[in-house]
C-alpha cells in the first residue's frame, strides 16, 4: 500500500528546546494511525506538520508524496480535515454555516452545500432540522464535537487529523463518541492520524499505534504488537491499562 503521509527524519526545535527528534514513519492509505504519548511528548507538534501549521526544523514531511513545503498551504489544509479538543467552532456561525465553511470557500453552489450539510448532520447523529440553525453556544460539549467532526468531513478530504478530539468530554459521552468514531471510520475508509494520551482509546481506534516519548518514536505497530512491546515508556502505558482493569 502507498504511504498517504510520511515523516523523513523530522526534527523540530523551538526556542532552543527539542520537541521532535529524528522522527521517521509512514501512514498508509486508509489506516488510522494513533500517536500516543504523555503531554509534551510532541504528538500535537507532529500532527501540525501534516497540514503545514508547522514545518520541520530538519527533515521533511510528505503528503501524497509531496513535501509540505512544496504544497500550497491553503490547498493542503482544505484537503485535510482537522478536529481538535477545543473544537473551535465559529461562535458567530450557525451549525450549518460552520459545517459549510470549507465547501463555501471552495465555491460549491448553495444546493450542493445544503445537501451536504444535511447528509453530514445525519451521519454524526444530529437531526438536521433541529440542529442546523443553532449556534455553538446552544449545543452540549458532545454535540459541539460532532459538529466539529462534520465540519472536518465537509469537503470530503482524503486525510483526517484528530488532536485529542474526545479529551474534553465526560466519560459516558466519550465512550459514545469513540463508538461512533469507529462506525464512521468503517463507513468512510479514510486515512487518519489520531493523537491521544489515553492508551485505551489508542487500542480502540487505532489500526496501528506509535508511541512518542520526548520527541522520539519508541514503538510503532498494530495493537497486538503494541501490547507485547518492551521498554520503560510502553510498559508504563500498559501498566495504567492493567491498573484500570483491576480497578
Amino acid at each position: 500500500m502507498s504511504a498517504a503521509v510520511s515523516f523523513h527524519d523530522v526534527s523540530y526545535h523551538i526556542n532552543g528546546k527539542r520537541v521532535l527528534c529524528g522522527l521517521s514513519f509512514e501512514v498508509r492509505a486508509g489506516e488510522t494511525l494513533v500517536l500516543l504519548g504523555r503531554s509534551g511528548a510532541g504528538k500535537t507538534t507532529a500532527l501540525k506538520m501534516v497540514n503545514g501549521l508547522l514545518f520541520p526544523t530538519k527533515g521533511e514531511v510528505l503528503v501524497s508524496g509531496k513535501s509540505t513545503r512544496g504544497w500550497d498551504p491553503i490547498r493542503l489544509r482544505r484537503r485535510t480535515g482537522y478536529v481538535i479538543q477545543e473544537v473551535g467552532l465559529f461562535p458567530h456561525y450557525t451549525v450549518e454555516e460552520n459545517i459549510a465553511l470549507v465547501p463555501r470557500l471552495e465555491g460549491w453552489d448553495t444546493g450542493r452545500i445544503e445537501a451536504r450539510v444535511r447528509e453530514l448532520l445525519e451521519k454524526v447523529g444530529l437531526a438536521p432540522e433541529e440542529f442546523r440553525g443553532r449556534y455553538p453556544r446552544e449545543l452540549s460539549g458532545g454535540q459541539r464535537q460532532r459538529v466539529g467532526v462534520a465540519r472536518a468531513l465537509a469537503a470530503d478530504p482524503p486525510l483526517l487529523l484528530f488532536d485529542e478530539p474526545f479529551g474534553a468530554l465526560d466519560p459516558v459521552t466519550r465512550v459514545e463518541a469513540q463508538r461512533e468514531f469507529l462506525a464512521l471510520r468503517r463507513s468512510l475508509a479514510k486515512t487518519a492520524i489520531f493523537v491521544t494520551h489515553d492508551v485505551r482509546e489508542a487500542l480502540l481506534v487505532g489500526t496501528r499505534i506509535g508511541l512518542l516519548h520526548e520527541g522520539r518514536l519508541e514503538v510503532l505497530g498494530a495493537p497486538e504488537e503494541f501490547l507485547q512491546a518492551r521498554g520503560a515508556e510502553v510498559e508504563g502505558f500498559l501498566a495504567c491499562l492493567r491498573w484500570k482493569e483491576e480497578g
Partner: protein
Amino acid sequence: MGRGVVEEILELTLEHVWLVLAAMAIAAGVAIPLGVALTRRAAWRRWVMGLANVLQTVPSLALFGFLLPIPLVGGIGKRTAIVALVLYALLPVLRNTLAGILSVDTAVRESALAMGMTSRQILWQVEFPLAARTILAGLRVATVTTVGTATIAAAIGGGGLGVFIFRGIASVDSAQILAGAVPAAALALVADGGLGWVETKIARA
C-alpha cells in the same frame, strides 16, 4: 433669542458635527488598520500603545497650541483642529481594536487556519465580526470625547460650538456659553445613543 442667533447655533452645530465626523473618519481609518497590524506584531505593540497613551495625556488646549507652528498640519483653522482631534481619538479606537481581535479564541483562529482560510479571510470573516462590538465601543467612547474636545477647536480658529463658549467667557455672558454647551452636550448624547444602538444590533446578530 432672535432669528440670527438660532441660525448661528444651527450653523456652528453643523460645523461642529463636521469637525467630529472628519476627525473620527480619519482616526478610524488610521487606528483600525494599525490595530490589526499590531495584533500581528507583538514586538511593536508596547511602543505604539505607549506613544498613543502619551498623546492622550497631553492637555487638549496645549496640544492645539503645539500644532500651530508645525508646517503642513499646523496653522490657524480647521485642519489643525482636526489633526488634534484625530490624535486624541486614536487611543481608544486602537486599544479596542487590539483587545477585540486578541480576544478571539485561539482554538477558533487555529481551526480557521487549519480549514484553509487565508489570513485575509480570517480577518474579514472571523476576527472582525467577533471583534466588532469591542471596536465599536472604542469608536463610541472616542466620538463622545471628540464632541467635547472639539469645542476647544475654536481657540485656534477651527470653528464649531466652541465659538459661543469662548465668546461667552470673554464677555462674561452665560447665555452665550450655554448656546455652545447645550447643543454640544446634546450632540454627545445623540452620538452615544446612536452608536450604542448599533452595538446592540450587532450583538444580536
